[in-house]
């Protein structure tokens, strides 16, 4: 925008100019010419009269704009301001900010105070489907009823026209866009899903509490109420009762001579005892460490004796399962190629080297790395030893063929990556016991060591600068 020259201002705000009645500027005229002339009418009294009618509605500019945009009448005019000129200063912003619905011709402005067009062709105000009531001072007295009647009538008509248009499918797109635009510009938290209040579960806000422990007559409900820790002591009582039952049963069997010494090994590996906090939560009571230890000791004693199903179930209530890593070795499924040879594919990583190995079931111990024989790819003996290790461990040195691809890292990392990939692939050809042996030997674990960063103030990751006494 060039400063200091009002005249040469780009016609961005033609409305202001028009509203202030400062007359048309050159730019505006150009703009007006761009507006297609839909219809042109001759000067006629009817047009003048209609213009007067429009002038009478100048007091209700929004309505006018609405009527015009909805195509009730068109203006074929060089007269008036530019396309999007709104009426009145108050509507300036809204009109400029609100995007006009697509498909409507830009409403040519007509301000009642605008001087008539030089051509003399009056703004042809042609209300299309209906005739407006002429408003005259004579009818002023009857004006209110007439006026409001008119207002109601054409409001209803408006609605009718809009619904007609919608039914005709003309305004659907426009209406949807309008809705979206309004939702974007005036966001409301009332209907937005993300603005919904998220409340915590009541159990998180109100911690579990004891209800009143006694009835109306004052007698407590639990028979161990007067100990202070009724849940814990009743649990101990129950556990000890079960122990006594078991011992009594054993004594009876022994008396009959049917007692057998066999102790079945219980599957305790995959589970752990409840921790003190979990027990406290279960009982809704505070416990001391000694109480907890005593309880666990009692349960363990219960486990050592041979007990029946319900006692087992009672004890299992206080054990939680723990995921055992050693059982989760993923064994790749075997695949078969065209010749019917079984093979298995697996991946391995070491530092920044990634490798993929395909191990064939039958072979003579040939290894191809990136299409190159391993002897040529790994000239250093140490790397070839790394490749050899899985087969040597399983005594299958010359029995498998391997094809692998590797990228990244250095020679040692690539060798390590291939080794891991080969070991994983070999799991498919080997028994579960041998898989467990491999796991314990460390063949199936990815080496997590990476280069440690250098720290400031030191020469390397660990090496410090030479210390000088003085």
């Amino acid at each position, binding site marked *: 925008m060039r400063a200091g020259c009002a005249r040469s201002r780009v016609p961005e705000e033609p409305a202001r100019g028009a509203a202030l009645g400062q007359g048309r500027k050159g730019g505006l005229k150009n703009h007006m010419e761009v507006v297609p002339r839909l219809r042109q009418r001759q000067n006629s009294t009817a047009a003048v009269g209609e213009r007067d009618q429009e002038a009478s509605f100048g007091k209700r500019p929004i309505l006018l704009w609405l009527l015009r945009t909805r195509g009730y009448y068109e203006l074929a005019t060089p007269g008036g301001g530019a396309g999007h000129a709104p009426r009145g200063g108050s509507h300036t912003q809204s009109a400029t900010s609100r995007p006009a619905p697509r498909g409507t011709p830009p409403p040519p402005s007509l301000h009642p105070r605008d001087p008539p067009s030089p051509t003399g062709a009056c703004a042809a105000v042609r209300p299309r489907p209906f005739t407006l009531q002429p408003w005259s001072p004579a009818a002023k007295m009857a004006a209110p009823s007439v006026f409001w009647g008119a207002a109601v009538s054409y409001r209803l008509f408006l609605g009718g026209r809009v619904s007609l248009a919608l039914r005709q499918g003309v305004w659907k797109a426009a209406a949807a866009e309008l809705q979206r635009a309004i939702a974007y510009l005036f966001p409301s938290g009332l209907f937005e899903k993300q603005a919904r209040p998220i409340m915590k579960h009541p159990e998180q806000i109100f911690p579990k509490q004891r209800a009143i422990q006694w009835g109306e007559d*004052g007698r*407590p409900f639990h*028979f161990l109420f007067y100990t*202070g820790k009724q849940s814990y002591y009743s649990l101990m009582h129950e556990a000890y*009762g079960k122990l006594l039952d078991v011992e009594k049963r054993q004594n009876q069997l022994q008396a009959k001579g049917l007692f057998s010494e066999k102790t079945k090994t219980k599957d305790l590996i995959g589970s752990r005892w409840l921790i003190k906090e979990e027990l406290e939560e279960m009982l809704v009571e505070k416990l001391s460490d000694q109480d907890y230890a005593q309880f666990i000791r009692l349960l363990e004693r219960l486990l050592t004796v041979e007990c029946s199903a319900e006692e087992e179930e009672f004890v299992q209530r206080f054990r939680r399962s723990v995921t055992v890593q050693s059982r989760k070795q993923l064994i790749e499924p075997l695949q078969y190629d065209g010749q019917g040879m079984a093979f298995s594919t697996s991946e391995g990583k070491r530092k920044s080297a990634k490798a993929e190995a395909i191990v064939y079931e039958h072979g003579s111990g040939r290894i191809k790395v990136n299409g190159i024989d391993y002897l040529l790819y790994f000239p250093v003996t140490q790397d070839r030893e790394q490749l050899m290790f899985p087969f040597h461990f399983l005594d299958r040195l010359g029995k498998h063929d391997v094809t692998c691809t590797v990228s990244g890292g250095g020679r040692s990392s690539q060798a390590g990556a291939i080794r891991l990939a080969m070991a994983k692939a070999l799991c498919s050809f080997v028994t579960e016991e041998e898989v467990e042996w491999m796991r314990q030997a460390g063949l199936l674990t990815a080496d997590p060591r990476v280069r440690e960063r250098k720290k400031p103030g030191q020469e390397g990751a660990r090496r410090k600068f030479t210390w000088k006494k003085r």
Partner: protein
Amino acid sequence: MAPAASVSRLLGAGVCAGPLRPRLLQSATPGRARPSGRTLASAATPAVREPEGSIDLNDRILNEPLKHSDFFNVKELFSVRSLFDARVHLGHKAGCRHRFMEPYIFGSRLDQDIIDLEQTAAHLWLALNFTAHVAYRKGIILFVGRNRQFSHLIETTARDCGEYAHTRYFKGGLLTNAPLLLGPKVRLPDLIIFLHTLNNVFEPHVAVRDAAKMQIPTVGIVDTNCNPCLITYPVPGNDDSPPSVHLFCRLFQTIINRAKQKRRHMEALYRLQGQEGPGARGGGPAHPPSLGAYPGDRSSPLPEESGSHACP
């Protein structure tokens, strides 16, 4: 020997009894349970509202057992012979003897004290009678004992007769500071029964002293090494042998169940009479010559009792 004779001796003179018995005479006095000092300590006892018309009914229900000397027929539950068979007479060595237990000791055999079972029987009758009356009046009974060998048994006994037990570590202010430890408006026990008066380190149980402080009557089985002073109804007897403790538990359980059953019968009876009209007939004490009259009794008395109950 009839327990009645020794009972009358005890009631009248109170000489050989040794420890003071402030409550002995009061057990026969009628009247509803007034709010005593211990309940005042723990705020207000939850009041059970009774309709106006049944106050006299209630009075009659409560006063009826007090007109008979043995309303619950306690004497048929045991005999000296049954006590002897349950080894109740065996005490500790003479070196463990407590000075205040000397009146109850019959003698000493090979340095082991023998408890006088006739006195035991008399005291046991009083204790059981009192327990029955408390249970009849819907009092809270707390069984206390600290011998780990019988902890489970005591708790089971308490649960089976609908009362309460405490055989664990006794927290300091459980009775004296009950509103803080147990809840604001807790109701304290109306009777505490000690199966073992000493704790695990052979010292008097804290609850003995606390119950005396809170004016809660106590019944306790006192061995030769125990202090019977603060116990309201001491019962000299063996508290270490299993048969003895089993017998005592059985006795208490039986008498409590019997008393509760009697109360239910009396209430039903008086309700019926109230519906019929005035002119109520009093329900007499139980006359169970046969043992089938109290089907609620879990215990089966020893075989010698049926022959010997008339002249123990």
